[in-house]
């Protein structure tokens, strides 16, 4: 890789279009939000500067704290399942062959379904009157009804998220695993290494970098989740499955309480920025993935060499 990149400030020309578009989409709206977050807006003409009042109020709002708590619980739960499951699935995939393409496509499908459709699919699937899962569970004797029982609602949501996003972890892990040149497996076999040792000393070092990325991505994305729970449970029963995004959305759009909504947005965004910073630093110093990709290319060359 390591192209020696010359220094040239005229490169800014190439970046200009991107800058303009993203600035338009991001900077202006963000400035608006920050602006609103420090004002009390009664109507178009009467606005009062209130400093950090909204921030204080939001952080002390019991409903905010509850939503935050639920969000953390949800994110940790799905992470705890999706990461190990994704790794196992990736290890189970054949490295090459006809089945590999088919299975990869199957794994990619949940990632390409509109999020509301994901919600709809699970709605149809889990309902206790018309759903395969719902009816099935009731037939087995469990009084399953996610619309009325908060625990069932939680479990269904987690099951849905696992269905939706484990593929991401699996595909990332698979990318990491397939970057291991076969020679490493062969060397370990000749050494007499056990299966566990192969996993620990050959695969884990490669997976390490990929996993950090997977964890951070899932953490960030699950923190922002909105559509799927909205469609499936609507945040209910009651408030049981109302997470942060939904709370923010109802505040911003439904109630037109711009000040607090804006403050909330800013707090929310700052959390994400924090995760982002960690993500960026771990990715930029992690050369494993890029070296791995290059190694794979080199190995393909080596394999044709007889």
């Amino acid at each position, binding site marked *: 890789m390591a192209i020696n990149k010359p220094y040239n400030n005229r490169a800014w020309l190439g970046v200009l279009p991107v800058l303009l578009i993203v600035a338009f989409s991001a900077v202006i709206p963000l400035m608006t939000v920050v602006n609103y977050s420090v004002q009390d807006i009664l109507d178009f003409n009467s606005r009062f500067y209130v400093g950090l009042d909204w921030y204080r109020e939001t952080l002390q709002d019991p409903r905010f704290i509850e939503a935050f708590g639920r969000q953390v619980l949800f994110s940790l739960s799905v992470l705890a399942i999706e990461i190990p499951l994704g790794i196992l699935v990736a290890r189970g995939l054949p490295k090459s062959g006809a089945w590999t393409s088919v299975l990869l496509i199957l794994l990619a499908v949940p990632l390409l379904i509109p999020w509301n459709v994901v919600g709809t699919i699970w709605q149809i699937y889990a309902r206790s009157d018309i759903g395969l899962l719902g009816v099935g569970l009731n037939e087995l004797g469990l009084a399953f009804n996610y619309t009325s029982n908060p625990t069932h609602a939680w479990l269904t949501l987690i099951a849905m998220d696992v269905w939706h996003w484990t593929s991401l972890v699996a595909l990332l892990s698979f990318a990491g695993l397939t970057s291991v040149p076969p020679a490493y497996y062969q060397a370990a076999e000749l050494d007499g290494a056990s299966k566990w040792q192969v996993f620990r000393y050959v695969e884990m070092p490669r997976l390490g970098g990929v996993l950090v990325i997977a964890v951070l991505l899932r953490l960030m994305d699950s923190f922002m989740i909105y559509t799927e729970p909205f469609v499936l449970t609507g945040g209910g029963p009651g408030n049981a499955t109302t997470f942060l995004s939904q709370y923010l959305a109802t505040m911003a759009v439904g109630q037109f309480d711009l000040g607090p909504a804006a403050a909330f947005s800013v707090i929310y965004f700052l959390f994400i920025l924090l995760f982002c910073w960690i993500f960026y630093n771990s990715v930029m110093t992690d050369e494993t993935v890029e070296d791995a990709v290059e190694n794979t290319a080199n190995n393909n060359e080596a394999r044709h060499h*007889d």
Partner: protein
Amino acid sequence: MANIVLDQLGFAYPGALEPTLLPLSVEIKDGEAFALLGASGAGKTTLLNLLSGLLVPTTGRILFDGVDVSSQSGSQRNLAQVFQFPVLYESLTIADNLAFPLRARKAVNGFSAADIASRVAKIAGELEIENLLKRKPKTLSLFQKQLVAIGRALMRPDVSVVLLDEPLTAVEPRTKWQLRQSLKRLQEELGVTMIYVTHDQTEALTFADRVAVMADGKILQTASPQEVYEHPAHEFVGFFIGSPGMNFVAIDSATPAPMYAASGVDQSAQRIGFRPEWARLEHPPMTHPLSAVHWLGRVTHCQILGTQDGAPVGITTLASEVGELKVRGAINATVGEEIMVVVDRCVSFCAEHYVATHYAQSSTGQLRNLVGDE
């Protein structure tokens, strides 16, 4: 350390139209430094993979010390392999990397921790890498990493054979010869059977006790580097070995020139080959035109490689009545000049196979003729 016999070994990939390896037989002696030399596509990697247990033979058998191991896996055969690029455990220190093969088989060979530590120290000492033991692979140069990889392959005292798959490929050119030296020295000191696969003839000829030259899935010749150089069993061997390789001239069997007969080349020969270093340039006319095989040629190119006794030596390329010829030695002609190529020694081939070696008559007129291999 094991004696390895390949008995009519052949291999074809499932569904392939032609076999990759035609049935071949060769014996590699215990403690021998053996090289497998051939161009890309010759089948040497396939042969290596059969030896290491990665592939199962389609025909024939592989015997280690008389035991048929054809269906055994690599680890069952107790062999070790050095790859084209250093294959190390990135998360372990060099010391742990070296110890790994012994620790993994602890249950089988009963090595104690002390035994393992002393073996690590010994091998590290042989390779002169004691100062690297506590470091991680990430911090080492490619050359150092490949040294460690070689060390790992030598860790087991009872290893049957060490396979080396073009081990110098990834190493910087400056350090290649250093690695070659270390390898040769280790092989001799430890007496380990080593099979070295390469397409580079310098590596093969300097390392090996015996070389097997491969092309198109066949072993064309298995012999010492000297033999392979002087008495190539096949035209391809003559062509492949040497830089540049042999010159080949077709003999018109209907009317062969008398000079061939004088050198002892008989009717069955179809082509003769001579190495550029077996010929010299002489200004016409020849004093004894029948004493040696010779042709008139016009110099097209001179490549100077150095000097000897103040005179330039190198490779002279000529266009002659029998095609392009190359001569290596003193350059005593200029481009465009007409000069004689006189062949002091040549080899005759029939159907690409070796027939005999022929020498030019000495200036006293005595015929010296060697027939067949010694």
